[in-house]
């Protein structure tokens, strides 16, 4: 048995500790800098979104939801490609007639072509959903980022305001405002939904910004002479974007539902605008005798919302693989 238990028979002798050196160090190779380069220079460079794309494209859920979203957007943007029938031209003599040549979904209680109304109804849902989502992202991230990044009284005041709005139910508040408004356009519906729907995104942004701002790269940016505003916009927000984008995708679905709810209640878009919510409301009276006329606008709504929700799930998993492994 060797005298010194640190001795390694057959191996290189261990160095004697120098004065002031508190611990033994293992013999190390003294190769050049290349010896510590763990990553090869020719490895394909990737980005956060490059990685996310790689993870997403292998999932069938991504392709299904992407197909649904693309279809809905196409229908909303170019309804004329899908039908040549005007959804507002109705013939009472054809009321509640079943599917027939040229009218695959049949006719509703007013004698309007259900297929054409379902196609044209997509536009108002998508427009309101996208507008409201853009507005909440702008409003919510601004408020959340300022509260989380600047802290102190900014945070105290903005967080209390967020709490107050958070306590107001979205649809209830929208009902109150819409019911006293005469000119109900898509923009107004989106604005009212955004006005009461930004709180969740503000909370998410605040939390993410608070954790990102404690990273060393933020101190590094300060040391490089960046102003606080520059650091927030150029470094903190881009590094906080993943949860915001995920929530925005889910929120889009929720706003489409909220718009349909308001239109169903008769205080969303006016009856002159073709919308799924309005058609669901109109079909309600015939639900016992002709339930199938409810099926088409409700099916369009459900499919669209499902598409966006599934996309939100896929994007979340791709940006945060840890969430998927739970």
């Amino acid at each position, binding site marked *: 048995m060797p005298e010194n238990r640190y001795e390694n028979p057959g191996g290189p002798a261990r160095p004697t500790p120098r004065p002031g050196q508190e611990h033994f160090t293992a013999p190390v190779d003294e190769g050049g800098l290349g010896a510590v380069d763990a*990553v090869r220079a020719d490895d394909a460079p990737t980005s*956060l979104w490059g990685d996310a794309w790689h993870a997403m494209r292998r999932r069938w859920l991504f392709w299904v939801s992407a197909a649904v979203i693309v279809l809905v957007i196409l229908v909303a943007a170019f309804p004329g490609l899908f039908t040549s029938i005007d959804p507002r031209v109705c013939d009472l003599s054809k009321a509640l007639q079943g599917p027939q040549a040229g009218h695959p979904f049949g006719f509703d209680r007013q004698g309007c072509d259900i297929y054409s109304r379902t196609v044209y109804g997509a536009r108002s849902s998508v427009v309101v959903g996208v507008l409201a989502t853009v507005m909440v992202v702008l409003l919510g991230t601004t408020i959340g980022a300022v509260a989380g990044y600047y802290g102190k009284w900014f945070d105290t005041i903005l967080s209390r305001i967020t709490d107050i709005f958070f306590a107001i139910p979205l649809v209830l508040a929208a009902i109150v405002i819409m019911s006293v408004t005469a000119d109900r356009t898509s923009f107004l519906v989106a604005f009212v939904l955004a006005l009461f729907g930004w709180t969740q995104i503000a909370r998410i942004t605040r939390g993410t910004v608070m954790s990102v701002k404690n990273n*060393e790269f933020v101190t590094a940016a300060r040391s490089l*002479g960046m102003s606080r505003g520059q650091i927030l916009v150029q470094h903190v927000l881009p590094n906080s974007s993943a949860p915001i984008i995920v929530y925005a995708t889910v929120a889009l679905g929720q706003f489409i539902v909220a718009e349909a709810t308001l239109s169903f209640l008769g205080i969303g878009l006016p009856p002159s605008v073709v919308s799924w919510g309005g058609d669901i409301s109109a079909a309600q009276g015939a639900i016992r005798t002709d339930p199938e006329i409810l099926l088409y606008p409700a099916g369009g709504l459900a499919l669209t919302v499902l598409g966006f929700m599934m996309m939100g799930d896929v994007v979340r998993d791709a940006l945060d693989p840890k969430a998927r492994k739970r």
Partner: protein
Amino acid sequence: MTTVTTGPAAHGGAGPTTVLRCTDVTRTFGRGTGEVHALRGVSLAVAAGELVVVRGPSGSGKTTLLNVLGGLDVPTSGRVRLGERELTTADPDEVLAARRDEVGYVFQSFGLVPVLSAAENVEVPLRLRRTPAGERAARVAEALDRVGLAGHADQRPDELSGGQQQRVGIARALVARPRVLLADEPTGQLDSATGRRVMDLLRELVHDDGVAAVVTTHDPELVARADRVLDLHDGLLRDGATPAA
């Protein structure tokens, strides 16, 4: 109060090559019974091309000293002079300009922006100085080449090893040719062999560029690379043993 008067810069007061000087600096955190004296009268002068290592245990005030020297923190009392600028009396915009124009920082956990590539990280200081795009690209390429990472320009920090990330950090700190380099435990997250190589590289660049460098560490291995060693204990700076020649 402790005054350190050794080293090439300190002979005969403010020599012509003194780039960084602090006098009687104190920094106190908190108030009343919770008061913590991180620095208790520290004076230091660093010359161009000099590598000063400040060693001391955790909590001895090393990071506070670097933050005060680099204008990231304001001392409770005392003066800090960086080049021609008196940081302690300058307005915030001037301190910001001093950080941008005069100081390069190297951090223990590298401080690289995760969403930017190595080249983009190195480019940040040049963008802040509004360097023209063509010159920027050339200087970034040159800086990455000097730290041996010419082939890794497009990789993100996550795709690089610890030693490589710290070399990107060093390239970023030196790309804009600052007069002062401050490094806070630059080898703290690296294994000893990589740490030694990073420190050798740092020493070489400091001497080549004539930068005044202050490096903190509590790794006795790295002290051997210093031109001058100082000990910081409980906020007091003392001359350390001169490293083995």
